[in-house]
């Protein structure tokens, strides 16, 4: 077993005990102060087959903060996001070079189980994808059960309630937990997917354009939720929507590409600065809507 696998287990165990204690305390076993890097990406390049999709991307995702990745279609935002929890390798032709570390541990080190990476780094997708044949309750409970995170009815009930509360969905579904996950509205389904991701006790949550299929009200709810969640988790959100990045993130990474160049980082900085005083002309053009 590698260092990462052991560490991740310790992580989960520590947090399991903490469930009963005051939330938010002693969350990070490494004791990093708020704002330290939860994930670091160094010189990440990604290919699909022979085609370079992302070249030499370097950034950090800080703890208890929201990092937004913005940029036009094809600039490699989702590719970068998927490299952060090894969901990229699900695509048969995809490969990467560079380093991705989670609390200093290389998630691509030899012998690291991708499942242990994904348990610690959860993901929410573009289209809400609750399991249609499962109840709302089981949508949340299934993965922790299968991963051995909870056993027994009482503990599972507690975990499901906690996850749904954190995803701001509990009050809407507490009386219909037996109903199909597919019976909910789009925004509720997306929050169910967030609850489902929270239930396996991740440390980082990746969101891949989580609002692109939602109406404006549901979008605002998800943004507010992301803000609340950022008090506990590191969040990395890919978005098409510049207003969303401006409203809902602490740090912004602007990516772009052109004919000569695969997806690359144009500018990284605190969101407030980038949107009020962009350093790069390209960034300025993009955020003012002149291209993209």
């Amino acid at each position, binding site marked *: 077993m590698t260092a990462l696998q052991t560490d991740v287990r310790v992580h989960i165990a520590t947090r399991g005990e903490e469930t009963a204690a005051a939330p938010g305390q002693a969350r990070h076993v490494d004791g990093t102060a708020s704002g330290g890097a939860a994930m670091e990406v160094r010189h990440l390049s990604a290919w699909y087959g022979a085609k370079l999709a992302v070249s030499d991307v370097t950034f950090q995702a800080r703890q208890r903060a929201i990092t937004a990745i913005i940029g036009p279609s094809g600039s490699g935002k989702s590719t970068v996001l998927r490299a952060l929890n090894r969901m990229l390798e699900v695509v048969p032709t995809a490969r990467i070079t560079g380093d991705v570390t989670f609390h200093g541990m290389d998630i691509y080190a030899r012998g690291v189980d991708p499942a242990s990476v994904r348990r610690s780094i959860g993901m929410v997708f573009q289209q809400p994808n609750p*399991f249609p044949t499962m109840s709302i*309750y089981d949508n949340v409970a299934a993965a922790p059960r299968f991963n051995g995170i909870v056993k027994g009815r009482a503990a599972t009930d507690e975990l499901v309630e906690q996850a749904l509360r954190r995803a701001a969905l509990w009050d809407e579904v507490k009386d219909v937990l037996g109903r199909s996950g597919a019976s909910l509205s789009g925004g509720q389904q997306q929050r169910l997917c967030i609850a489902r991701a929270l239930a396996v006790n991740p440390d980082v949550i990746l969101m891949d354009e989580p609002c692109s299929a939602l109406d404006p009200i549901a979008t605002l709810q998800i943004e507010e939720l992301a803000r609340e969640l950022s008090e506990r988790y590191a969040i990395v959100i890919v978005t098409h929507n510049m207003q969303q990045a401006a409203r809902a993130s602490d740090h912004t990474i602007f990516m772009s590409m052109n004919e000569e160049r695969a997806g690359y980082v144009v500018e990284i900085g605190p969101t407030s600065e980038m949107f009020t005083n962009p350093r790069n002309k390209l960034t300025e053009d993009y955020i003012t809507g002149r291209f993209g």
Partner: protein
Amino acid sequence: MSAEFHLRPSGAMRHARDRLILGLCVIAGLVAVLPLAAVLFFLVVEGAKAWTPAFLVTPPGPLTLPGGGAAHAILGTLEMTGLALLISVPVGTAVALYVVEYRAGKLALVVRTAVDLMAGIPSIVIGLFIYALLVLTMGHFSGLAGAVALSLIMLPIIARTSEEMFKIVPRRLREATMALAMPRWRAIASVYVPTVAAGLMTGIVLAVSRAVGETAPLLFTSLGSNFIQPDITQPMSALPLYMFQNALNIGFPAARQRAWAAALTLVVIVLLFNIVGRWLATRASLPAARN
């Protein structure tokens, strides 16, 4: 300006051609439906004459005389088809999962091609194969040999439909199970299978419908019997065999009627299996009640 636009009534010729084609289609449809309707009509009219509760529960009498039932054949059909199901459903589903979910490269392709070829083997050849494999080695005909022969007929149907079904599990559900770090077999058992349960069940129902009416593979495996024989290691009758036996004596009205009644029984069994299958599939795709 208005001269640029013309709203003309459609031409009479065009109208007539439309109607002609429509008429031909309707006729073709009727021609296709007619034989089915005729079969069902004769089946019910002729079958009903001998289809009494006694027919379903009595053992057979002398072939040329009235009376006597198909209890032994019904029992044989249920036992052999049931055992064939128990063999072919797990194996067929496993083959499909191997090909689709575990994408094992060349070997998967070989397995898949083999299954496809199997679907093309005439059923009497399968009967002969099982005769050589089981009947000769066991030293006697048996319901077991018949069931194995039927399972070989069902296997490619189940494997192929299951394969198609597992292929249509939406990618976003697969990604969800992976992002939640679900073990693959758990994802298969609790997400993929329930999601495509209706389609999997269609494959099973199709396979059963096909196997339940097969006579050729049973001729020299289960052979047939004139007694109620629950022991599957012994020769056994089945409804198609019983129909064959009786229909050979078509000169005797009683035998002819029993053949029709047996045919009706066969169709009713397939129908009931269809209904139960569909009901089970619907249940599997609904979220389980929590309490």
